[in-house]
């Protein structure tokens, strides 16, 4: 009987205070939609940034006359004695020549059959931030400030320093910015919803006062408000999710077939996103109603 009574009270309040209830619902709807669009965007951006960071590599160039034994020895060093190496790729003189010739056919025509390119190993680090450690371990900085190499068959270790620095700092900024934006958006949503609820409660503070004077306990007054908050949050969230689903099916999915970026594997899957958004909207508006009411209960 109690639950039924509270539910009826909540429904009555929704009906009788249609305008503020609608405002609260619209606020939930808009913020949930914003979050629903923004969260995948953030994830796609982060995913893209991570992909770019995956391009951070170090090249170990062999001396031009390195023998097969030299190459085996260096491979051994790289595989067993160098930390943070995630992937190792060997590019022989011939492969390098073929690849470069394909890129710049005219230049290589002029060279004739001479192959000026050395054999090399391409190292992918386990974490892009560890690239410097790899370079330092293969090519430590000598006492004079010059770099030496750990094996005489290695000519030079290059991590294309400038490129690497640029990639690392740019992706860091991108990640930080999106994280900050996401945090701000979440805070703004919570404040907006809480404020709307507070406004609709403020309009009814006299009612709460009367209830208290008639002898209603705090929770007797509060439950209908909390249930009302749950209903407002659920309806607003549900509408937003429906709109998002329509957007996804109508706009994003057709595009996804043409562009790989949108179908980036790192984005959260849709059902999980929906569940999260619904839960958040219900929780925020229910807690918002319950907590905002406290001020008016002090009679």
């Amino acid at each position, binding site marked *: *009987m109690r639950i039924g009574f509270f539910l009826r009270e909540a429904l009555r309040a929704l009906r009788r205070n249609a305008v503020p209830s609608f405002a609260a619902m619209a606020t939930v709807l808009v913020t949930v939609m914003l979050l629903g669009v923004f969260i995948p965007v953030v994830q796609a951006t982060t995913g893209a940034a991570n992909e770019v960071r995956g391009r951070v590599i170090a090249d170990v160039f062999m001396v031009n006359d390195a023998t097969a034994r030299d190459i085996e020895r260096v491979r051994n060093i790289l595989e067993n004695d160098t930390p943070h190496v995630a992937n190792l790729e060997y590019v022989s003189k011939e492969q390098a020549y073929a690849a470069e010739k394909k890129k710049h056919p005219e230049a290589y025509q002029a060279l004739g059959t001479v192959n000026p390119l050395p054999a090399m190993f391409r190292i992918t680090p386990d974490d892009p931030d560890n690239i410097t450690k790899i370079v330092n371990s293969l090519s430590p900085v000598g006492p004079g400030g010059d770099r030496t190499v750990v094996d005489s068959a290695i000519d030079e270790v290059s991590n294309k320093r400038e490129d690497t620095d640029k990639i690392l700092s740019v992706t860091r900024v991108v990640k930080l910015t999106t994280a900050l934006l996401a945090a701000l958006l979440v805070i703004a949503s919570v404040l907006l919803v809480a404020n709307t609820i507070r406004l609709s409660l403020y309009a009814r503070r006299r009612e709460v006062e009367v209830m208290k004077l008639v002898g209603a*306990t705090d929770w007797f007054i509060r439950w209908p408000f909390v249930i009302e908050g749950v209903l407002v949050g659920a309806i607003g969230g549900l509408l937003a999710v429906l709109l998002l689903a329509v957007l996804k099916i109508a706009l994003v999915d057709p595009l996804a077939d043409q562009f790989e970026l949108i179908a980036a594997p790192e984005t959260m899957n849709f059902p999980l996103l929906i569940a999260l958004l619904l839960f958040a909207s219900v929780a925020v508006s229910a807690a918002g109603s319950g907590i905002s009411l406290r001020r008016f209960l002090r009679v």
Partner: protein
Amino acid sequence: MPGAVIEFANVSKVYDSGDTGLDDVSFAVQPGEFVFLVGASGSGKSTAMRLLLKEIDATAGTISVAGRELNAIPRRRVPYYRRNLGVVFQDYKLLPNRTVYENVAYALQVTGGSRRDIRDKVPDILRLTGLSLKLHNLPDQLSGGEQQRVSVARAFVNHPPLLLADEPTGNLDPETSIGIMQLLYRINKTGTTVVVATHDVEMVNKMRRRVIELSNGRVVRDEQAGAYAARESTREFAVRMRSDT
């Protein structure tokens, strides 16, 4: 005094602003009494009423209602204490979004009254207060006198041992006021103790009931106006109230 419904013992109330609400006030009200609390604005009437409702706490002294000391009631228990009081306000304090019937029913729902309980009691009390035809009207569709009747009905639906009325006729014309006082008189005749705070001196004089007069927070008069017929019927009462003397 044992058995008193209300007992003020050396009660003082000083507000945070420094204003004095009550200054060493003592009096007792016995079961079944009809008491007027009179005095000009700012004399302490409303302070006494708010203390009885435990909206505020006394600065000094003790207030007992039905033998319970109000200071000893924890905040959490205040709602349960208030259920033993019927309260009528000058501004009616009805729930604006509820019909007459629902407003009265709310007082029962608060105490966990069953639907059956509500169906039994609410129509009865609304008949008693003459509102049977306005059951499904909202408060803003009623006249002031009718709204006050709803308020009285809500206060009395639980049959509390004590009914407090703070300026119940303050917003009403004389004829309507008599109707409300008649209603309170009828409730008093069922054995309920009634305390009415008012500044309507003429009304008080006509009622010829006990009067406690406050001035600047002190009791300046407390007289048992004995010169009335205690067995007076409600009708006789109304006739007398409407006469000019």
